[in-house]
């Protein structure tokens, strides 16, 4: 089980790396996320605030922020705890806590560290040019006098994945210890054992084969429980959105991609580059299609998980926001009742989706691995095809 923990820790490391390489030109950030405080005589535009809240939730953030409220003295108080920020700047590695930004996300609070000035804008950390003490933006909200830094921070999602690693270590560690003493587990193990057997009997064995599946069971179990627990954590009020980060799902899909390619046998590659039992012209035509297929499979794995979880979170938060947006039409009690009813309904669907997406990801991974390791038995036929018909006829007559 230490292995499982190491794997999750490795996931976490890879994820931080991928986040930094993620799309430079993020269209989500093009909206003005910051709430207008002063417009309309100090009245906050609730529609904008809800929109920015949802957008902020769907992104990965640098501090663990639970909620904020306005105190009696009129100040904004934030509840949560800071997470470490680890960035690679032109002056080398800088490590500090995210509390130094004071919950600022608009680039106004500057953090000075031996020779570099850093600002955080839309959950991205920028290094200001030499001698500049104010970050400026062009029309598309891209900073004009600052550059992005390599960001290896322990963000909220990375923290969440580490938490999942810990949860998996604790619950499966205790299950593993129980098996040393007796054959039937007790407590939490009673829940986990059928799930492990389910992954083995319903996912791995039918798709990969009884003998070959043994090698891939650790990966399939790890990915199943990682996604499932991550999805369930996303439904708690802690506000995690781990599997809703495209970097996370991209990483998971990359793992499946590499496992499939490295375990693909002779038949797998033959079916890509020289499809047996089809005319030569088709063999050539099929090469680009099959090559494309190698990449579309993990790509669809990545998009499916990301879009499902993002859509789920989006719908749930929108339904919760009904409480505020429909207050004028239905009154406080009516809108709250409607919102609670609808979000409860969606919540149960999301509980199902949380499991279903973990199941689908594992199942399709197993399917792709099974396709790569399957041994085919094609008699390479050289004739015109009529010989085969004769052969078959002979067999039956």
């Amino acid at each position: 089980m230490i292995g499982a923990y190491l794997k999750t820790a490795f996931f976490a490391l890879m994820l931080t790396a991928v986040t930094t390489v993620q799309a430079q030109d993020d269209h989500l950030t093009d909206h003005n996320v910051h709430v207008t405080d002063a417009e309309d005589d100090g009245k906050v535009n609730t529609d904008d605030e809800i929109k920015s809240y949802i957008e902020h939730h769907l992104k990965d953030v640098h501090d663990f922020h639970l909620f904020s409220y306005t105190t009696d003295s009129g100040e904004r108080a934030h509840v949560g705890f800071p997470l470490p920020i680890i960035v690679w700047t032109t002056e080398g590695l800088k490590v500090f806590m995210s509390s130094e930004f004071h919950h600022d996300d608009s680039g106004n609070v500057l953090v000075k560290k031996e020779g570099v000035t850093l600002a955080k804008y839309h959950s991205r950390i920028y290094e200001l040019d030499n001698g500049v003490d104010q970050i400026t933006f062009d029309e598309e909200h891209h900073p004009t006098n600052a550059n992005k830094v390599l960001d290896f921070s322990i963000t909220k999602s990375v923290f969440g994945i580490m938490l999942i690693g810990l949860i998996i270590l604790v619950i499966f560690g205790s299950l593993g210890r129980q098996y040393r003493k007796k054959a039937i587990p007790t407590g939490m193990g009673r829940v986990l054992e059928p799930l492990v057997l389910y992954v083995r009997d319903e996912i791995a064995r039918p798709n990969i084969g009884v003998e070959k599946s043994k090698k891939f069971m650790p990966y399939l179990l790890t990915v199943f429980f990682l996604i499932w627990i991550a999805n369930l954590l996303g439904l708690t009020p802690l506000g995690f959105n781990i599997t809703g980060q495209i970097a996370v799902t991209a990483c998971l899909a990359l793992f499946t991609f590499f496992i499939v390619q490295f375990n693909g046998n002779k038949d797998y590659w033959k079916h890509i580059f020289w499809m047996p039992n089809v005319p030569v012209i088709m063999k050539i035509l099929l090469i680009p299609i099959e090559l494309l297929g190698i990449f579309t499979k993990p790509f669809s794995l990545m998009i499916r998980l990301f879009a499902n979880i993002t859509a789920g979170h989006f719908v749930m938060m929108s339904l919760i926001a009904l409480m505020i947006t429909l207050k004028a039409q239905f009154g406080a009690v009516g809108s709250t009742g409607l919102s609670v009813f609808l979000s409860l309904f969606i919540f149960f669907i999301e509980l199902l989706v949380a499991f279903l997406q973990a199941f689908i990801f594992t199942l399709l991974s197993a399917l792709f691995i099974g396709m790569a390791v399957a041994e085919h038995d094609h008699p390479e036929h050289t004739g015109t095809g009529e010989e085969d018909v004769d052969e078959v006829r002979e067999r039956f007559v």
Partner: protein
Amino acid sequence: MYNLIGAGLIVIGGGIGLGQIGGKAMEAIARQPEAAGKIQTAMIIIGALLEGLAFGALILGK
């Protein structure tokens, strides 16, 4: 505006596809209830592949 129309078209296409899959699976289960487990798994796989396609289009169109 246009990407919203596109999203609507994607959802129509995906809906038709999912309806076909679900409907045929129900018919198949009604014909052979003992094969319900296998049919369900196959249905979920095809549903997931379709979903991947539709979501891919939605993400690309955004």
